[in-house]
C-alpha cells in the first residue's frame, strides 16, 4: 500500500492561557492519502481547527506541539526548521479559512493577494504572478476575472471572496489543501457551489483535501473518509459510507440523530445530544464524552478508550457501546 501523504501520529498540542495550560489535542492520529478527501467532524472546541493549524505550523506563540509527530510526504514537520515549514506553506500545503470577510487583507488588491504565493514560491516577477492570478480567478469562475484583479476585498461578496481564497490556495498547486469550515459563513445557496468548486478543482489537481466541518451533509456529499473528533481526540474514523451506515461511537450516533430530516413530524422537537461540549481546560476524567453518554459504564470514568479497529478500516475509541 502507498504511504499516506499526511500522517499525524499521537499528536498533542497545548495552549498557554490565563486559566492555565489547555490541552487542545490529546494523542490525535490520522492519515490522509494522496487524492483523498477527508472530513474532520466535531463540535466547536473539539480540536478540528487546531489539528489543521498544527499541520501548517501556525499555532501562534501561545500554542505548541507537546508530543507526537506530523509527517508530510515522508518528512517530519514537527522537527523541521521554521524556514522549511514556511517554504511548504502555501506551496505544498495550503489552507482555506472559515471567514472570507476577514481573511483577505482589506488594503491589498485581490490580484496581488492571489499572486503572492506564486511570487514567493515560484520565483516569478510580479507581472507574471499577477497574470497567473488572473487565470486562477477565471478557474474559480469569478466573472470578469481580468478586470477584477485591481479590485479590493470590500468590492466582493462573501461567496466571491471565498472563491478568491480558493484561487489563492490553488495558486501553487499544493498536494494538500485544508479547508477549515469553508462555507460556514456563507449563504446556504452559495455553500454547495463553493464546495463543488473546491472538490472539482482538487480532483483535477489530484490534491488531497481535508474539509473541517460540523455539517454532516457536507461530509456525505464530498468526503471519502471521515474522522469524528471530541474533546481533542479522535473518537471514530471510517469511510463516509460506512460511517453513515454503521456509526459505532455513541457521539457519532448522537450527531447522526441530530440531523433534521424532511420526514420528521411537523412541530416535533429536534434531537440533540444532552449536555454541553467539554471545557478543554477541565476535561472530564476517562472518556471525556462519558458525562453525556447514555451508555457510560464505570470504566468510562476511569480510563481513556484507545482507537481500535472494530471493522476493516473502521476505528473507534469506546469501551462499551454496541451499535
Amino acid at each position, binding site marked *: 500500500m502507498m504511504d499516506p501523504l499526511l500522517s499525524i501520529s499521537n499528536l498533542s498540542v497545548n495552549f498557554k492561557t490565563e486559566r492555565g495550560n489547555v490541552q487542545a489535542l490529546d494523542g490525535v492520529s490520522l492519515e490522509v492519502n494522496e487524492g483523498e478527501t477527508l472530513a474532520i467532524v466535531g463540535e466547536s472546541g473539539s480540536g478540528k481547527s487546531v489539528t489543521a493549524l498544527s499541520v501548517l505550523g501556525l499555532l501562534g506563540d501561545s500554542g505548541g506541539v507537546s508530543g507526537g509527530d506530523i509527517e508530510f510526504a515522508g518528512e517530519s514537520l514537527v522537527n523541521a526548521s521554521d524556514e522549511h515549514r514556511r517554504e511548504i506553506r502555501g506551496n505544498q500545503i495550503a489552507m482555506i479559512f472559515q471567514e472570507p470577510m476577514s481573511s483577505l487583507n*482589506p488594503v491589498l488588491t485581490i490580484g496581488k493577494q492571489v499572486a503572492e504565493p506564486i511570487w514567493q514560491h515560484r520565483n516569478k516577477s510580479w507581472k507574471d504572478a499577477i497574470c497567473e492570478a488572473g487565470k486562477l480567478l477565471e478557474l474559480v469562475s469569478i466573472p470578469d476575472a481580468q478586470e477584477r484583479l485591481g479590485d479590493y476585498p470590500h468590492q466582493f461578496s462573501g461567496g466571491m471572496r471565498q472563491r478568491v481564497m480558493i484561487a489563492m490556495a490553488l495558486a501553487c498547486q499544493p498536494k494538500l489543501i485544508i479547508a477549515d469550515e469553508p462555507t460556514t459563513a456563507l449563504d446556504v445557496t452559495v455553500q454547495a457551489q463553493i464546495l463543488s468548486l473546491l472538490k472539482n478543482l482538487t480532483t483535477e489537481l489530484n490534491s488531497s483535501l481535508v474539509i473541517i466541518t460540523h455539517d454532516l451533509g457536507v461530509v456525505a456529499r464530498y468526503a471519502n473518509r471521515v474522522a469524528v473528533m471530541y474533546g481533542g481526540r479522535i473518537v471514530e474514523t471510517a469511510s463516509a459510507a460506512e460511517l453513515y451506515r454503521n456509526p459505532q461511537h455513541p457521539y457519532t450516533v448522537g450527531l447522526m440523530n441530530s440531523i433534521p430530516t424532511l420526514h420528521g413530524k411537523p412541530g416535533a422537537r429536534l434531537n440533540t445530544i444532552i449536555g454541553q461540549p467539554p471545557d478543554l481546560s477541565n476535561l472530564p476524567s476517562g472518556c471525556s464524552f462519558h458525562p453525556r453518554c447514555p451508555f457510560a459504564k464505570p470504566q468510562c470514568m476511569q480510563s481513556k478508550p484507545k482507537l481500535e479497529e472494530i471493522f476493516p478500516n473502521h476505528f473507534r475509541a469506546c469501551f462499551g457501546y454496541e451499535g
Partner: protein
Amino acid sequence: MRLLIIRRLLALLPTLIFTSIIVFASIRMIPGDVIDLMLAQNDISTGNDRAVIEAALGLDQPIYIQYFVWVVDVLSGDLGRSLWQNTPVTEQLALTLPITFELGFLALLVALSVAIPIGIYSAMRQDSMGDYITRSFSLLMLAVPSFWLATLVMVFPSVWWRWAPPLQYTPFLEDPVANLAHMSVPAILLGLSLSAVTMRMTRTMMLEVLRQDYIRTARAKGLKENIVIVRHALRNCLIPVVTLVGLQAPLLIGGAVILEQIFVIPGMGLMLLEAVFQRDYPVVTGVFLVVGVSILLINLVVDLTYSLLDPKVRS
C-alpha cells in the same frame, strides 16, 4: 479626488472665520493696550496724544469695523503692518515661517523614524525585555516636558564637557550643515516628545493587526515574516497612526514656538512672543491665522493620506 479636496477646503472656511474672530478679539482684551505701551516708552501721557496715535493706527474705530477692514485686507493678501516697526506682517512671516516649518518638519521626521520602527519592534517582541525598555522610555518622554529637557541639554553638557549646542542661526540655503547642526538638537527634543504617543499607538495597533485573520492568511501562504509585517500589517496599522500624527500638529507647532525661544531660532515663535509682549495686534493675528491655516491644511493632508492607505475611503 479633486472634488474631495475642494470640498474639504471649503469646509475649512467657517473654522477659519471663527478662529480669526477669537484671535482678533482676545489679543485686544489683554489688559494694557498698545497705546499705553507706546506712551510709556516715550514718556508722554497727555490725553490728546493718545487720541492722535489711536487715530493714526486705526484703533479709534469700533472693534467690528476694525475686524471688517482686516478681513477685507486679508482677502487681498495683506495682513496689515506691524504697529511698532511699520513693516508688513506678510514680509516678517515670509522670513520666519520657513524656519518654523523646517523645525516642525525635522521634528516630525525624528518622531516618525523613532516611533514607527520601535513601535513595530515592541509589538513583535511583546513582553520581552526590549519591549519593556522601549515602553518605559516612551512613558518617560511623555512625562518629561521638552522645554525642561531642552534646558538640561543647554546646561549640563557645558558644565561637564564644556560643550553647548550651537545657538547661531544660519539660513539653510547659506550653509546647510551649520543650519542642521543648530536645528537638530531642538528637532530631536521635540521629535522625541512627539514620538512617545505615536510609538505606543503603533505598538497597540500592530498587536491588534497581527491578531487579524488576514495576517494568518498571509502566513499560511508561506510569505517571509518581514513581508507579512511590511506588506500586510504595516499599512493597516498606519491608518490610525496617521490620524494621531494629524492631531499632534498643534503640539508640534506649539512645541516649536517654545523651543525657538530656548535655542534662539528666529522663527514664528520668537516673532509671536515679542508681538504679544508689545501688543502688536496685526502681527499676533497674522501669526495665528497662519498657524490656524497650517493646522487645518495638515489635517487635510491627513485625510488625503487615508484615501491612499485605505481603499474603502477612496471608493
